[in-house]
């Protein structure tokens, strides 16, 4: 024979069950989340296949202070230095020149970052054509670009990270390219 106290206890089981179920679901979601793939290592000059285009990182340099071209994005703030990574893209032949330019600028600014020897990650600050970087707008091939990063002044040993927005199962999700040989 069940007492009123027993009934009260069994009536309280539903919230407990709901809590346990929610906790189990939350735990399993955290535990079963796919691990992000480790970065895939590439070298300077290797073509990165990014679906509709390829990208090559060519070299890196530290921007002189004051910069050779009066662009705000090239001026270092106190405690920072500016590094420029030279890249070349190929493909995008189906786009108009203006669409290519808008696309490349957006991609380079959103999908590139550098990490230093202390694993400090810095996203791209700005991307511009190599012609603009050298003070000769339109004077260099359209496919040569420069990505600018503002990093801590004492940081060194940089690695460029390139994120693939739509990775296929056999390709890379994140490319890591050491910028210092």
């Amino acid at each position, binding site marked *: 024979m069940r007492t009123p106290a027993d009934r009260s206890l*069994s009536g309280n*089981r539903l919230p407990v069950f709901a809590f346990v179920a929610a906790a189990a679901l939350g735990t399993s979601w955290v535990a079963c989340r796919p691990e992000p793939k480790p970065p895939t290592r590439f070298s300077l000059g290797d073509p990165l296949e*990014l*679906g509709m285009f390829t990208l090559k990182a060519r070299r890196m340099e530290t921007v002189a202070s004051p910069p050779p071209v009066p662009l705000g994005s090239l001026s270092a703030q106190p405690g920072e230095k500016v590094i420029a990574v030279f890249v070349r893209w190929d493909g995008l032949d189906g*786009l108009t020149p203006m*669409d290519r330019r808008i696309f490349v600028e957006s991609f380079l600014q959103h999908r590139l970052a550098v990490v230093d020897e202390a694993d400090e990650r810095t996203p791209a600050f700005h991307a511009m054509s190599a012609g603009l970087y050298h003070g000769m707008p339109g004077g260099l091939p359209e496919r040569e670009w420069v990505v600018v990063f503002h990093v801590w002044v004492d940081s060194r040993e940089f690695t460029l990270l390139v994120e693939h927005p*739509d990775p296929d199962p056999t390709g890379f999700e994140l490319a890591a390219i050491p910028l210092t040989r």
Partner: protein
Amino acid sequence: MDRSAASWVRCVTALITAALGFGCEGAVVQASACDGLGDRKMGITGVEYAPCADELVSALDSLRLYLSPLVGDDSSAFDPADRAYSRLRSLIVETGVIRDYRSVTTSEVERWPEGTVRAFNRAVFGASVQYGSALGAARRGLYEDASGQIP
């Protein structure tokens, strides 16, 4: 049956119902050329978008067809107009453009690299908002005057 057993039965029934609901949801959703575009993060070209764009234009045309009688006070067009509007909105959601406009993490430019396609998407989205407003206004009785004049 005591209360404990009854609550367990209710809980299991609810879970089974929810599972069936999720399982059967896909069966009633109409397949579309726009399916899956919202999952893409880069490089949807105009050529591959064309079949979906056709469906979007057809959905807009279909909705317009039913909106005209509503303006003329033909309330029998409400149901098909609602269905046409739902179809249009579900297609637009499938393309992912609403998320593009709201998100700060995805890039509209990367997903739709062609400026003409971005302009098309904005035109379709704008038209859907305007048609939705017209439908809502008709439902609120703003078009009671059978003259068809927009107040």
